[in-house]
């Protein structure tokens, strides 16, 4: 290269680095039970073109019917980001690896765009509302059986009615073909039977005393899992020829569904669902009308930055990704973008990203050391810097095992544990705690010792999960203040997930590590406590459920076992308060921030009337992307800004 050009070339090179960067920035934490279904950090499989493949500004007034793969009429299409990374693999809800962000996500608030559940969970009021089901379900007196009816209006896309037999057959197929759904529920759900065409009875698994092992999880099944058509399942079985793996891996493009949308187009640049104008839900017994957008579309973005740019440009209506300093979009840029709450924390906190202590690391078996580290951490900085204030602070919502929703906060006695709740940055308190426990620096090198060895830990989280990384940096900084050396380390997620889910944890590099906790769901807060301190998951391998640090306490386990069968609110409150007390005393892990179930920001350039705080809906529509659980009700309220 001619030397004169080199100076120019080096400049160009620097700029090209900026442009060529490619690590996804933020993270979504999948809800409790299921192993990672969707995670933006899994690098996009296919490399899409640089520009998002959407046709943003063109809004033909009299739109002809769009061709699959062609351009979509803007004022009939609701665009998403942050849900779909890489191409869709299949349309088969029996599979757990469809990578189908718009259509398939079973869980606490199941995604009901294409497939439907009997009930819809509403994270704002904690209730389950009937969808395919007709009216509320009932328990028998012994709380061992649930009975509910199917709506007479409910129809499959082929026009046949949804029957109780479909519900029963779906469960039988899950069991027969050993799906993840079966694995998660078969210890609690015994059988699902069709009494007649409309009536379904779910029998819970019973313990030796004849009580249901876990009535909470049985009830949660109703809003967390899809109902599939029996006839189509039989077609699938025939195709699979009895091979369980084939059954689960089928692409299922011929799938029969009951929801308002179905597949329109999908490749490695975008996924589009189109409305089924024959959808049964327009019957007066359900919604009474069709959802507003004709198309739901999701361009597949390279990373968060690309998705963010599209949101800014109005090419995305509903954004499910962590956008740092989102308030600048309206404060500085004056864009018609808003979040569920107008002010920080902008969303409803639902889950508790938590740092777990590896209790087998030297010194971390000592509760005083654990607590000292936890109370020294500057949580306000984590929330302000790592989360850019998109989390309530621990002064606003004191720490416990509850998420910040009002419903859960009422479930424990805050006053009883107030003296145990710390807000952080208590350096003096932490030092005193360590001194008192005899953990002191005897050789004067600045680091405290246990058994003559300096306390030195590695704090870790997956690489590229920027908000977690920034939080871990703050944890490490706290260690220095109290004489405990904490360094950081960020392995790739592909490595990380194989390490923290296996017991025993490695001796080095994973002393303090971040994982998540349960979000909002019908089994919460019970499911979350179980995941934080329940002995059930402690020291197990293939553990995707919680308690990764290996904390075991029989007292805790007894309470966790008793809660699902307990119906007396006062007793429940007592139990949860006791669990909180133990959790805050023993500190087997510590929560670093609150995090919404899903990030939910909307751009009102085309559509408006999205759910927001005090929007007058009753029951309130939760900020669940207008696709999940009761959140789908929001799709029926949307209107165009310029009709």
């Amino acid at each position, binding site marked *: 290269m001619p030397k004169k050009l080199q100076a120019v070339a*080096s*400049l160009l090179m*620097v700029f090209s680095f*900026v442009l060529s960067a490619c690590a996804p920035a933020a993270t979504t934490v999948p809800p409790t039970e299921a192993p990672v279904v969707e995670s933006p950090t899994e690098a996009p499989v296919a490399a899409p073109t640089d520009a998002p493949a959407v046709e943003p500004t063109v809004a033909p007034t009299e739109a002809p019917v769009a061709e699959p793969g062609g351009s979509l009429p803007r004022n009939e299409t609701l665009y998403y980001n942050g849900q779909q990374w890489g191409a869709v693999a299949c349309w088969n809800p029996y599979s757990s690896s469809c990578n189908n962000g718009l259509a398939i996500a079973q869980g606490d608030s199941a995604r009901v765009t294409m497939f439907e559940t009997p009930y819809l969970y509403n994270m704002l009021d904690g209730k389950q509302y009937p969808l395919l089901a007709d009216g509320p379900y009932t328990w028998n007196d012994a709380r061992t059986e649930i009975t509910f009816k199917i709506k007479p209006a409910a129809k499959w896309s082929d026009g046949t009615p949804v029957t109780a037999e479909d519900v029963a057959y779906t469960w039988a197929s899950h069991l027969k073909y050993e799906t993840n759904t079966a694995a998660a529920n078969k210890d609690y759900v015994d059988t699902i039977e069709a009494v007649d065409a409309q009536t379904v009875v779910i029998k819970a698994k019973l313990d030796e005393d004849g009580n249901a092992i876990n009535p909470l999880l049985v009830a949660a099944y109703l809003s967390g899992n899809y109902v599939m058509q029996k006839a189509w399942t039989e077609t699938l079985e025939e195709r699979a020829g009895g091979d369980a793996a084939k059954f689960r891996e089928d692409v299922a493009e011929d799938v029969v569904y009951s929801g308002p949308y179905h597949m329109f187009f999908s490749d490695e640049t975008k996924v589009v669902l189109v409305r089924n104008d024959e959808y049964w839900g327009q019957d007066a017994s359900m919604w009474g009308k069709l959802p507003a957008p004709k198309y739901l579309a999701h361009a597949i973005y390279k990373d968060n*930055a690309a998705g963010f740019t599209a949101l800014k440009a109005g090419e995305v209506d509903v954004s499910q990704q962590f956008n740092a300093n989102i308030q*600048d979009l309206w404060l500085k840029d004056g864009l018609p973008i*808003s979040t569920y709450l107008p002010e920080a924390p902008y969303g409803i906190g639902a889950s508790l990203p938590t740092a777990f202590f590896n209790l087998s690391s030297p010194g971390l078996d000592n509760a005083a050391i654990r607590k000292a580290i936890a109370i020294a951490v500057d949580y306000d900085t984590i929330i302000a810097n790592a989360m850019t204030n998109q989390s309530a602070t621990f002064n606003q919502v004191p720490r416990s095992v509850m998420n910040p929703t009002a419903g859960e906060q009422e479930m424990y006695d805050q006053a009883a544990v107030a003296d145990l709740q710390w807000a952080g940055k208590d350096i003096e308190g932490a030092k005193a705690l360590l001194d008192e426990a005899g953990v002191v620096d005897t050789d004067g090198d600045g680091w405290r010792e246990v058994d003559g060895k300096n306390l030195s830990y590695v704090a870790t989280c997956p690489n590229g999960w920027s908000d977690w990384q920034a939080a871990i940096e703050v944890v490490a900084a706290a260690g220095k203040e109290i004489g405990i050396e904490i*360094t*950081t380390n960020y392995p790739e997620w592909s490595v990380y997930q194989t390490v923290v889910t296996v017991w025993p944890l490695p001796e080095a590099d994973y002393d303090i590590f971040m994982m998540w906790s349960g979000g909002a769901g019908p089994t919460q807060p019970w499911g979350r406590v179980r995941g934080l301190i329940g002995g059930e998951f402690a020291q197990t391998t293939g553990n995707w459920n919680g308690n990764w640090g290996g904390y075991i306490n029989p007292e805790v386990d007894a309470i966790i076992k008793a809660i699902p069968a307990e119906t007396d609110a006062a007793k429940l409150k007592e139990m949860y308060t006791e669990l909180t007390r133990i959790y805050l005393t023993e500190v087997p892990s510590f929560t670093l921030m609150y995090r919404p179930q899903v990030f939910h920001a909307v751009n009102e350039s085309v559509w408006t009337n999205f759910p927001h705080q005090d929007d007058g809906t009753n029951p309130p529509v939760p900020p669940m992307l207008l696709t999940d659980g009761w959140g789908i009700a929001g799709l029926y309220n949307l209107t165009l800004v310029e009709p």
Partner: protein
Amino acid sequence: MNNTLRQIFRSGKFVTGFAIFVAILLGTLIYPLIITDAPLTIIGQGTFFPPGIYVSVYDSLGSTRYTLDLGEANFNRIASRLSEEDRIAIKEWLVAAGIPEADIDTADTQKLLTQWEENFDAKKSIPGMTNAKRNYYVRLDKSIDGLLSAEGAILAQANAETGALEQTGTVEQSDFVNVQQVANVRFLPLGTDNFGRDMLTELVAATRVSLIIGFVAGIIATLIGLTLGLLAGYIGGPVDDGIMFITNLFTVIPSFVLLILISFSIGQEQRGAFTVAVVIGFTSWVWTARAVRAQVISLRNRDHVNLSKLSGHSTVHIILTDILPYIASYVVMALILQISSGILAEAGLSILGLGPKTTDVPTLGLMMNWARIYQADIQGRWWAYLPVLVTIAMVTFSMNLMNTGLDQVFNPALRD
């Protein structure tokens, strides 16, 4: 030697490059003597504070107050909280609320605000209004509340026993403090980064680390390249073939790809700044080796070399005294380029997330990486990445300039 130096410093290009480089170097050496804060200390609670002078509000309340009657004060105050767009937005609301358009004068602040106060209702639903717009009006309402008040603000303190607020003083609108007299003032010339760290302090520390990485990488690369080139060129034969075989192998593999692969396989735990520098050094010696070999081959059969051989000097002696001095100027130039490409390589690696560990030291590449992760580039936080870019550019630019200058002095083909 003196003569050579004099010649070098007569080259305008070299002097410019040298001056820039020395300025940067001195900056990294002197700045830490003045600002002694640790570069990775988190001082800001929040991300990307813009550049400016930060004055403690609390301390300024206790400072000596001066009364300044500035004619512009009221106007400025109103303008900062009620922009032209805000006035037009207020008019839109008032029209929607049923006030005749003729009655609204956006220039008459007093009247406009009175009308606003009388008519604004956050709960009122206006057809076609988006939630974002509604939020805007609520914010606006809060922001202009009491805008025209001529009263000062009251300072109050909670009574320790009853909890009731007791007035302890007032702040008049014409009260000023002298920034010099406020106990806590922090000048952040480049604001803060996403962690809330002082950007300038971090940048200086990062430049230093990046320079060290560049030097280490450059010296390693040059040493390897020089040694192999000298051996291959002078000894020739099978040694030459062997060395050139390896060199050619490395030539066809793009070194940056190699760098990425090695960095990735080392794993983050082991990736300190020094390790990264060594890895860069070990992947970028190829061209130096080839060029040195070519030069040595042309020197190998010169008379003075043959004379040395006849005198019975050892190979090492001949290489060091009869060959090396003749290619020294080239080696120095190669070293300078290696240093500058080492700095670029570190930046490139860090931006891909393969750079040194974050917490230990700041480097220019890591700063860019974090700025990008927190979307500083697309959210217009120029202070979080532009100064870093400029620094990288200036460092490499100055080195290339020095290199070109040297080239003009030493390369007979280019000599004037």
